[in-house]
């Protein structure tokens, strides 16, 4: 085995463990990372990487807003609890929770809450070794744009991109994944609680049902860390939730794709999701249980 082949092994190891942040990977064609085979070394077989991701909390908050949801001050997590989270796992998951709350507050133009949750993100970001994300320039931009909703959305999105990219740079994708998990859990928690407040809002219920797709991808992402006990604990919780989401029926009708004069393609076809109130109640209870485990 020559030096180049060793380099290739190292590179493949890198691809397996560190490629993509907020992204998991799962090599289809080769054996476990601990048992490199000659196929890896030769690299004559093409490597097929599979990654997963889910919509960002900002997208989800926008979707909730579009579905007629309101801002409810009692729903987001308690900012005062930020100092209670001491372990990296607690900090990572709650960074996701606070991040979703931050996006919820920002989209609904709640300036005070936006600042509170930004502060939570900053504190946990510092604890997780990402203090450089909240540099002086970023703080100044926040201060100048606090009342400008669209600008704040861009700034917050950039902050989370910077965090994610730093985590990738430091080869800490499992933390990034826990942040994604926390963010998704809080998004679904907020959605289900908002649906309780507005039980006749069918658009909101549809958005909850659609989370079955994101949950599939989230489970795929967590499966990328099958050797990580923390990820496995969370994976089991989410698999139980997935079993409930799988009760939602799906009827697909094929449709045509077409491109408009602005070059925007509409991907046609309809997918009708069927979720009764009993399923919604099960989802509501389970997501609240998972969230309680994270924040307490």
């Amino acid at each position, binding site marked *: 085995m020559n030096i*180049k082949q060793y380099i290739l092994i190292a590179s493949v190891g*890198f691809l397996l463990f560190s490629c993509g942040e907020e992204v998991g990977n799962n090599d289809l064609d080769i054996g476990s990372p601990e048992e490199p085979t000659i196929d890896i070394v030769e690299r004559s077989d093409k490597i097929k990487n599979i990654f997963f991701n889910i919509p960002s909390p*900002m997208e989800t908050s926008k979707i909730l807003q579009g579905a007629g949801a309101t801002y409810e001050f009692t729903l987001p997590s308690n900012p005062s609890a930020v100092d209670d989270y001491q372990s990296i796992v607690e900090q990572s998951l709650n960074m996701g929770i606070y991040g979703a709350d931050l996006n919820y507050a920002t989209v609904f133009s709640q300036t005070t809450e936006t600042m509170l949750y930004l502060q939570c993100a900053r504190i946990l970001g510092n604890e997780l070794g990402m203090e450089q994300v909240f540099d002086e320039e970023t703080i100044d931009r926040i201060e100048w744009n606090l009342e400008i909703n669209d600008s704040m959305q861009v700034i917050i999105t950039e902050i989370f*991109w910077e965090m*994610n990219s730093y985590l990738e740079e430091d080869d800490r994708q499992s933390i990034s994944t826990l942040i994604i998990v926390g963010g998704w859990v809080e998004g679904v928690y907020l959605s289900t609680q908002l649906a309780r407040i507005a039980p006749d809002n069918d658009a909101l219920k549809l958005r909850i049902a659609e989370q079955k797709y994101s949950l599939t*991808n989230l489970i795929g992402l967590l499966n990328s860390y099958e050797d990580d006990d923390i990820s496995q604990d969370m994976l089991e919780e989410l698999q139980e939730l997935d079993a409930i989401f799988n009760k939602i029926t799906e009827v697909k009708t094929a449709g045509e794709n077409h491109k408009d004069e602005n070059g*925007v393609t509409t991907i046609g076809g*309809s997918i009708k999701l069927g979720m009764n109130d009993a399923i919604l109640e099960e989802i509501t209870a389970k997501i609240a249980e998972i969230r309680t485990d994270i924040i307490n």
Partner: protein
Amino acid sequence: MKNLRLIILLSVLIPIGMNGQCRGFTKKTGRPLVEPYIHNGQMNSAVLFPGDSADIMLTFYSEQQYRLVICAEEQLGDVSYQVSDIERNLIFDSQNSDSKVFDFIVESSQQLVISVAVPESDNTHDITDQGCVAVLVGFKN
């Protein structure tokens, strides 16, 4: 023994260098292409070699307009990508398009698969041929 030390050193250094490479490249080259859409803040990137391919499973909501940007470092050549639905029905093939970006709306929320392929090269085993490929998503209402 000297070789072994070098190998261990490279095993540690290469991933760090590659990660940094991808972050800077994505920020400088990929993110401007997302505008005027709002970047969703997620970084889907990997360092790939000639001949590699990658599938990325993403969820997209109805009533949002999306922009998909795939950018790759120059040394990888003409990296192509396809967008398919979850049943692998082809929706978009970059090889049939002049545009670097794919703007789209989904009538119903669904998962899509983005398949990225790096062309083969005569030097597929050369470390200098690896490069960053980034998939970015922007959205607007």
